[in-house]
Every structure is written in structure tokens, then in C-alpha cells.
């Protein structure tokens, strides 16, 4: 028997990394929000690696934080190791990566959710969408409870018709042997959604006390850790090291001898797996001449002996997994605590979504995270926060928030998904961003915090301190531009010391700082500022000056992009009506229904000639509409 169990502004289904962000964003923006999850003990669970961040992914966490999301704060509270990667490269690709205490991470996120006003957390398995007149108005759980709302966000992760595969063994399951969601896929299909089957996997976990660390290399965290959240200023978290070892000839032999039992090759797996996250058997087959592969041993938390074996993701049978593990130096006597597995699941074809992550088929229904074909906690959380924001905006009848490719990695991620789709689980890479130099770890707040503030996710207090930072950076830039440098002894001595050519004429400090060898610290000593600048501000000043040439180049490209993004395409355009567009392009355009000419240019199969014709058509359309408008005004 069904019964109405509650009425909300917004309902989020699934409390993983996407769901938590979506629910928190909606609730914080003032929506009465319900967060439903199959198992309350699994809130913000990390079913795979115990880490957050890295190139592109770390940038995304920073962006989530700049918008007012939770992931950055949560990992800052619960990390057991923090490392800044790529420090030898340019500032745009510096990337923060944390090892998380998985258990603490979950617990902390759950506490935050439980203590957030407007937010109800409840256990329940959703099996049916309630759709009326093409609008999603609620959901029904297995127990018959109906929850009604104006906006629904689906974040089902790998639970949709999840199936675990381990050698010859196969069974219906969510991640880590959780109950799968078997019926919701059917409901989605019924409402016209096209689904695909994707696959991912995880390596075995081993017992710390059975590892011989002396045969491995230690990988410690940074001595002076940086943080993800702009709010975190310090931390007294104790750091744990990771350990590096390698596969051996034996490992490769064992895998090769057992390939016939690998589901990847025996044809059992039908889902498409990600190329960037291959199983060890895949790596050994595809890169047969590589003699060894890295294996990182990562602690899963402070109060657990479980270690995650990064690099050995596998769906081999359990007995083979054990043999593989024990062929790795340092793991000769290892105890396997959890077996690795592959998991298949249903995902929605993401080109069925608007850039707001609302579905084109069913109004009021948003999807975020792995259900949209992505992989990774950060990618999920990013979509979660955007879906939550746009669900709330819809409830509140406000215009949506869409980030473009020059504003955020989040913009790149969502635009790629909804415009190009994906035929494998999608992972963000810095190389996917055209304007990488603008999308830096250091400037996420400059890019996004004003937006977060406008929509009500950034507190007044935080915004004030943000504005103060902007102001001080401006003043300091100004000072460096106007302060004159004379070729005196002090300057020449400094230049000689850093190996830079001596100064012939006077210049300003800014020009001096542009020299590759000269840093802000050098000029600061000679020409101290009267402003109270913290490290973050100094870094900002230095980056903006040092790389201004390249930054300006990219800004010019962005200007061109923006022009195209500003040319909006009306919703009711019928592409089959547009004379002259090639038929393949017509089909693609009709399917994707791009919001702007800019988005249309990124659809594969749409040529520049098609775009030209579309522009002419739109001009025609607009003029005709204007004429009709003025005629009806006269009547």
C-alpha cells in the first residue's frame, strides 16, 4: 500500500558524494530538503581509493568549496595525509591530493548533514518515480512511502542494477556488497530514459600487519600541508605515509596464466570500463612490454589496519587475487581482508540532460554523479553541488546557474557530459580544459565565490574576508606597478645571487618580478609592502604578475568563446526546418538541443558551415519573431 509520507521542496536520492552535496546545497539555499539513502551507515562512503584530489580532481574540490560546497571542508577535517603535487610545474597545475580517513570522512559528513537546518536524512530505497504531465513530482519507496517535491535529484552511483563480478562469480549487488537498486532503472526506462551499462572496479584491501614495509619506499605527506577549503587555516591532523612497491615478473606470469579466468577477457563483462582506471590484468595485456607496474599501499584510516592496494584493481577470482598480491615485494605473506571486484551498473546517457543537469525528458528531475556516466568522488560531488543549486533555483523560480568552460573545471565536466556524452566512465583530466591556465587551484575563489555568495551558499562572513583578499591583492599589484627600481647595489646583488642579468636601467618592481629567476620573496625583501598580506595573497600577486603574458593570451580566447556562448538558441527551434544544415548535424542538434551557439559548436558532427547556416537561420527567426511581435502589439 502506498501512502503519502511527506512533502518537500526538494528530494535527493542517494547519499554518496553527489547526493550529500546536492542535499546540503538545496537545504542551505532555503529548500526544505529530504535526503534518502538505502543504508544510513553508508553516507559519503568511499567504495574505492581512500583519497581525494590530484590534478583536475583537486581543482574541482577547490571549486566546490569556493561555491560553498562541503567536500573541501570535510576532507580538511579528516585527512591522514596531504600532498601538493606538480610543484615543479606551473601554478595552474599545482594539485592538492589528500589521503582520507574513510571512516572519519563518512562520520563527519553525516554529522554535518544531520545538523543542517531544512535537511532531513532518511533510510529508504526508492523504486518508482512519480511523474505527472511530464513532470517529476515525487518518488515512492519499497515500503510504499510517497514523498512529494518540486524537484528531485537522482544520485544512484553504481547501485542501479549493480552487479559484482569476481572471476566466475557474479551476483547482484551495490558497491561493497550493499543492496542494489533493482527497480528504479525500470522506472527510468519507462519514462523514456536511455540507459547504458558501465563498469568500474576496485582492488583488494590487505592487513597492515602482514605487510613487510621494509621492501617498499615510503611516501610521506607534506611537512607544511595546504588545505582544500579556503576556510581551513590550520590543522593538527597527524599524517600517515603511503608506501610504494612494484609488481614482479611473477605477478605478470600469474596473471597471464589465469587470463582465461578473467571476466574482462572471458566475455562475462558487458559494461564499458574506463581506460584511465584499468585493472591490473588489463594493464599487463595492453602494455605487455612494460616489465613492472607501480603499487601504492595506502592506509584507509587511523583506526583501521586495512590498506588499499592502489594499482591492483582486479576482477580475477579470489584465489588468483591472493596469488597476485603475494607476488608483490613486501606482500609475500599478506593477508587479504577484502577481495577486489568489478562492478557493472546502469547509467543515464548524459546528453539527455540540460547543462543544469535537469533532464530534458522529465521536468523537475535532475541527475548527478556516476548515474551520469562519470567516475570519481570529486566529479560526483561537483555535479551534486550543481544539481542541488539548480534544483533549489527551480523551486525558487530563479534562473539556473551554469558555469562555462572558462570559469571552472565543473563547467568543463558538465559541458562535456551534456554536449558530447561519454562512451566510458568519464574522468576529469586537466587536458580536457582549454583554459587550464585560468582554472587554477589558487584562484578558485576569485572565479566562483561571488557566485556562491549570490545564490546564498557563501556566508556573509566568508564573503567579507574574500572581498578583503581581493582588495589587498589589487592594492599590492598596484604598488608593484608604481614602485620604481633603481639599479642600485642591493638590486644588483640580489640579481647576481639568483643568476639573473644585472639591471641596466631603472624599471618598476612588477617588471623585475616578471623575470623567471626572481620571486615575490626576493622583491618583498628589497621593497617591503605596508599591507598585511598572507601567503595566499602573496601567491596570488606573484602568479598574476609572472604569468600575465600567457594569462592574457587565454583571456583573449575566452572572450571569443563568450561571444558564442551569448548567442542563445530559442528552446522551440525545429532543426528539421532549418534549410541547408547537413542531416547528421540536424539529428545531433535536435537531440542535444544546445542552449547557445557556443554549445552547438562543440557537438561532434556539426561543421562550421552548419553553424554559419544556423546563425543565418536564427537571425531570420529573430527578425520574423520581432515582426510578429510588433504586429500583435498593434492589434
Amino acid at each position, binding site marked *: 500500500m502506498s501512502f503519502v509520507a511527506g512533502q518537500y521542496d526538494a528530494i535527493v536520492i542517494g547519499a554518496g558524494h553527489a547526493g550529500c552535496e546536492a542535499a546540503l546545497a538545496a537545504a542551505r539555499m532555503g529548500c526544505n530538503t529530504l535526503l534518502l539513502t538505502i543504508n544510513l551507515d553508508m553516507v559519503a562512503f568511499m567504495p574505492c581509493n581512500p583519497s581525494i584530489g590530484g590534478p583536475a580532481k583537486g581543482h574541482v574540490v577547490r571549486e566546490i568549496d569556493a561555491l560553498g560546497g562541503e567536500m573541501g571542508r570535510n576532507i580538511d577535517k579528516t585527512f591522514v595525509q596531504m600532498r601538493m603535487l606538480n610543484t615543479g610545474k606551473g601554478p595552474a597545475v599545482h594539485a592538492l591530493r589528500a589521503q582520507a580517513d574513510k571512516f572519519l570522512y563518512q562520520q563527519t559528513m553525516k554529522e554535518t548533514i544531520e545538523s543542517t537546518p531544512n535537511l532531513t536524512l532518511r533510510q529508504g530505497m526508492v523504486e518508482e518515480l512519480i511523474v505527472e504531465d511530464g513532470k517529476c513530482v515525487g518518488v515512492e519507496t519499497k515500503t510504499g512511502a510517497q514523498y512529494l517535491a518540486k524537484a528531485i535529484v537522482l544520485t544512484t552511483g553504481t547501485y542501479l542494477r549493480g552487479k559484482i563480478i569476481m572471476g566466475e562469480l557474479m551476483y547482484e549487488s551495490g558497491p561493497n556488497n550493499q543492496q542494489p537498486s533493482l527497480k528504479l532503472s525500470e522506472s527510468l526506462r519507462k519514462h523514456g530514459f536511455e540507459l547504458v551499462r558501465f563498469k568500474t572496479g576496485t582492488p583488494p584491501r590487505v592487513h597492515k600487519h602482514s605487510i613487510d614495509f621494509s621492501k617498499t619506499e615510503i611516501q610521506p605527506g607534506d611537512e607544511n600541508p595546504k588545505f582544500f577549503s579556503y576556510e581551513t587555516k590550520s590543522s593538527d591532523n597527524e599524517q600517515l605515509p603511503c608506501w610504494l612497491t612494484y609488481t614482479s615478473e611473477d605477478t605478470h606470469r600469474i596473471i597471464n596464466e589465469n587470463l582465461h579466468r578473467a571476466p574482462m577477457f572471458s566475455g562475462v563483462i558487458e559494461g564499458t570500463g574506463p*581506460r584511465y582506471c*584499468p585493472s591490473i590484468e588489463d594493464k599487463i595485456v595492453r602494455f605487455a612490454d612494460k616489465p613492472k607496474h607501480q603499487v601504492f599501499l595506502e592506509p584507509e584510516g587511523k583506526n583501521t589496519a586495512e590498506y588499499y592496494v592502489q594499482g591492483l584493481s582486479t576482477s580475477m577470482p579470489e584465489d588468483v587475487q591472493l596469488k597476485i598480491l603475494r607476488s608483490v615485494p613486501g606482500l609475500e605473506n599478506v593477508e587479504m581482508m577484502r577481495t577486489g571486484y568489478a562492478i557493472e551498473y546502469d547509467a543515464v546517457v548524459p546528453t539527455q540532460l540540460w547543462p543544469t543537469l535537469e533532464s530534458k525528458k522529465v521536468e523537475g528531475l535532475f541527475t548527478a554523479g556516476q548515474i551520469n556516466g562519470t567516475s570519481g568522488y570529486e566529479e560526483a560531488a561537483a555535479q551534486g553541488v550543481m544539481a542541488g543549486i539548480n534544483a533549489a533555483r527551480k523551486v525558487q523560480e530563479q534562473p539556473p546557474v551554469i558555469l562555462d568552460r572558462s570559469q571552472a573545471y565543473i563547467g568543463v565536466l558538465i559541458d562535456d557530459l551534456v554536449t558530447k556524452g561519454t562512451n566510458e566512465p568519464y574522468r576529469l583530466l*586537466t587536458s580536457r580544459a582549454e583554459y587550464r591556465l585560468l582554472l587554477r587551484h589558487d584562484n578558485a575563489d576569485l572565479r566562483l565565490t561571488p557566485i556562491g555568495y549570490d545564490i546564498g551558499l557563501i556566508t556573509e562572513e566568508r564573503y567579507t574576508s574574500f572581498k578583503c583578499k581581493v582588495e589587498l591583492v589589487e592594492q599590492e599589484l598596484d604598488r608593484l606597478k608604481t614602485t620604481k627600481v633603481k639599479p642600485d647595489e642591493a638590486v644588483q646583488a640580489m640579481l647576481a645571487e639568483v643568476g639573473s642579468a644585472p639591471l641596466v636601467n631603472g624599471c618598476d618592481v612588477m617588471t623585475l618580478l616578471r623575470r623567471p629567476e626572481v620571486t615575490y620573496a626576493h622583491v618583498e625583501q628589497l621593497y617591503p609592502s605596508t599591507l598585511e598580506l598572507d601567503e595566499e595573497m602573496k601567491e596570488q600577486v606573484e602568479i598574476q604578475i609572472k604569468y600575465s603574458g600567457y594569462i592574457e593570451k587565454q583571456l583573449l580566447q575566452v572572450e571569443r568563446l563568450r561571444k558564442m556562448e551569448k548567442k542563445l538558441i530559442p528552446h522551440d527551434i525545429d532543426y528539421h526546418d532549418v534549410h541547408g544544415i547537413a542531416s547528421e548535424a540536424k539529428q545531433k542538434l535536435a537531440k542535444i538541443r544546445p542552449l547557445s551557439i557556443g554549445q552547438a559548436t562543440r557537438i561532434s558532427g556539426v561543421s562550421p*558551415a552548419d553553424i*554559419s*547556416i544556423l546563425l*543565418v537561420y536564427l537571425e531570420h527567426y529573430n527578425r520574423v519573431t520581432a515582426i510578429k511581435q510588433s504586429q500583435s502589439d498593434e492589434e
Partner: protein
Amino acid sequence: MMYETIAAVSTPLGEGGISIIRVSGEGALTEVERIFRSKTKLTEADSHTIHYGHIVDPDNGEKVEEVLVTVMKGPRSFTAEDVVEINAHGGIISVRKVMDLLLQQQIRVAEPGEFTKRAFLNGRIDLSQAEAVMDLIRSKSDRAFSVAMKQAEGQLSTRIKQLRHILIETLAHIEVNIDYPEHDVEELTSLFIQERCGQVISEIEKLLKTASEGKILREGIVTAIIGRPNVGKSSLLNALAQDNKAIVTDIPGTTRDVIEEFVTINGIPLRLLDTAGIRETSDIVERLGVERSRSALQEADLVLFVVNHNEPLHPDEREWMQQIVGRQVIVIVNKMDLPKRLEEDELKAVFGEGSIVTMSVKEQEGMDSLEKSISALFFSGSIESNDMTYVSNVRHISLLKKTLQSLHDAVEASEQGIPIDMIQIDVRTAWELLGEIIGDAVGDSLIDQIFSQFCLGK
């Protein structure tokens, strides 16, 4: 106006010996100004005025061409933008030089139909014409595309692909270092980048050198000369070549079966193909030649069909007539000095009286009327000149030069110790520019390359 400044040759090539290069857009006046020397400054000139002067190479001050420049300020111009028209009276070579200089400024080659598109978007063209404008863009683009496809199969494109491969491997290597910093992939040294870029730089320099020698730039109206053996095809070819000074001869890579000559007739560039023996043959070696001749015939914009005044129509000739009817054909009745035995009326019935030229190549008689016929066809617009090939060639050179610049920037940056993720910007630009030459979409190929070149993952 919010559009970039564009340029294109707006007259069919060589019309009356004068070519008009049209430049439109916000920067039309300032950009042309950079390469124009005259008494008045274009930027200060009144609208709808004509100025005499010279196009000069701003790098060395060398005079490239004597020109008349028309200034039309928006909105009172064809596109409703600022428009500058450069009237150059040299032949194809000097037009190319002028285009070349323009494209080194902040100007790009116009897309097919782009002037018309802008005129429409800027409200210059009536609403009712929208469909016609869209048709124009479609047909011009399709034609450009088919030309591009033709070129994509050529030698140039093979070399461009090789260069792109070097660049994408380098890019994948840079990207892996950035996206997988802890992976045991060899760290990229600046020396490696300099070496790879240097390799591509020297190849592009070679390409550009051949371009300036005119070897990869073969443009003009593709003209096939067909006829039975001994009707005088080769003598016709030689006569035309001698009379009009061949620009390029002896193209490497072409066989003896198809001889190419470049001539200009009244300023109209012709690329003459003497398709030695189009006839059915069983001899394998000869057949290869015949195949080539056939494809040359397929490609031709204009067919010169040579027949003998002194002989009745041969069955072969009747067959060709069937093949070429409906194309742009000039029938050359050669050997008029000998008695008439040809069924000229039959030819007239098929091709029309105006298409028949009677001459004697040997006696040098009737050459004038042939040249007049060709000009007439050309100026009436009957021959669709393949100026698309021409434009895309100018485009190629400008893209190659931009590529070169990006690669030099990359090398310079790497010598200065600039971080690899910034050098990557220049290398990637170079790779994309080369892609534009062969019409390769950027797409996901870099990401594909990363994952096929390196073993990555957790």
C-alpha cells in the same frame, strides 16, 4: 561590430588582369593600413574614396604591388562593416603575395559565403533572402570541402599528418606528466621539447620554402586537352605554353602520360593537362596512363577537345562526345589548312556553334580566337574557377606560418625555463593549426593518445 576581420579574393582569378581582394570587419582599415603606403592614411580616409599606393612588406619595406584601395565604412558597405577593397592588377602571383601579407596581420581567410552571411546578419540583406544565403553557404562549403578532401589525400597532407603525430606524442607526454605526476613515466625535459619542436620547425620551413617556389601551390583552372593521337594536342599545349610563358613546368610526381603546364591567358591561370591517349587499351602499362588521363578528365573544369579538320569523326571521338557533353567544352578544329573532311555540323549540334574554334596550330592561326573563347567562358562565369583551391592554399601558408610562430614560442619559452604546462599551450596551438590544414577535428584524440601511449590508472 563583433566579428573578426576577414579577407578573400572576391573576383574570379585573373579577370581582366585585375583582382579585387576584399577585407571586411572591425579591423579592416587599421590592418590594411599596416601594409599600405600612400599619401593618405586609410584610417583617416573618407568613406567611399579610392586611394593609389603600394602594398609593402612591413618587415623589409619592399614594394610588393601597385594598387588602388577603396575604403567603404560601415554601415554603408556590402557587409555593413568597414570594408577595404584592394585592386591589384598583377596576376595570380602578386595577388597571392598581397593575401599572404594580409593574413600575417590580424586578419583571417573568409569562410565560404562569409561576406554574404555577414551582410545578412548585419541586416544588409533582405529577410526574404535568408534561404538563398543558407544555400550559398552550403554549396560553397561543400565545394570547399570536396577540394579539401582532394588535398587531404595528397602528399602535403601525409607530411602534415606526420608532423602532427610528432606533436601529439609530445603533448601526450606533457599531459601525462601533469595529470599523473606520481606515475613512473619519464619526466619530460625541456631538451626533449626543444628537440621535438625543432624537428617540426625544420620540416615546416622546408614546406614553406617549396611553397614560395610555387611547387605545392598549383592553382588555376584545370584544363584537360583531349583528342586522338596526332590531332595536334601536344603542339597546342606547346603553342599555348610558348605564347603565354609557362609559369611552372615539369611537375615531379606526374607521369609522362599527363603532362602539366601552367599558363595565363589574358590573366586567367590555366593548369593544362595533356591527357595523352584516352582510349580503351589492353596494354597494362598503357592502361595505367589511361586511367590517370580519365581521372584528369574527371577533375577538369574545362575540356579542350581537339579534332582533325582533315578527318571524319572517329568512333572514339563520338564516344568522348557522349562523355563530355554538358561540361565546359571548347572544340578545337585543328589543321584548318588541310581540306575539310570533318562533320562539323554534328559537333555544332552537340556543343553549340559558339564552342567551336577553328584553327591551325602549325600555322599559328586562330590562337587569338581560342584565347578569346576561353576568356569569354571565364568572364561569363560559365567556368567555375577553382578559386577554392587557391584560397585554401593561401590558407595553408598562413596556417603554416602561424604554426611556425607557435613552435618558436614554445622553444623560446622552454629555453627560458617556463613551466611545461605553459609551453604546452604553444605546442597544442601548433598541433591544432596543422589540424586545420587537413581539416581534422580536435576532438578527443589527445586523450586517446595519452591512454594508448601510456599505461595509467590506479
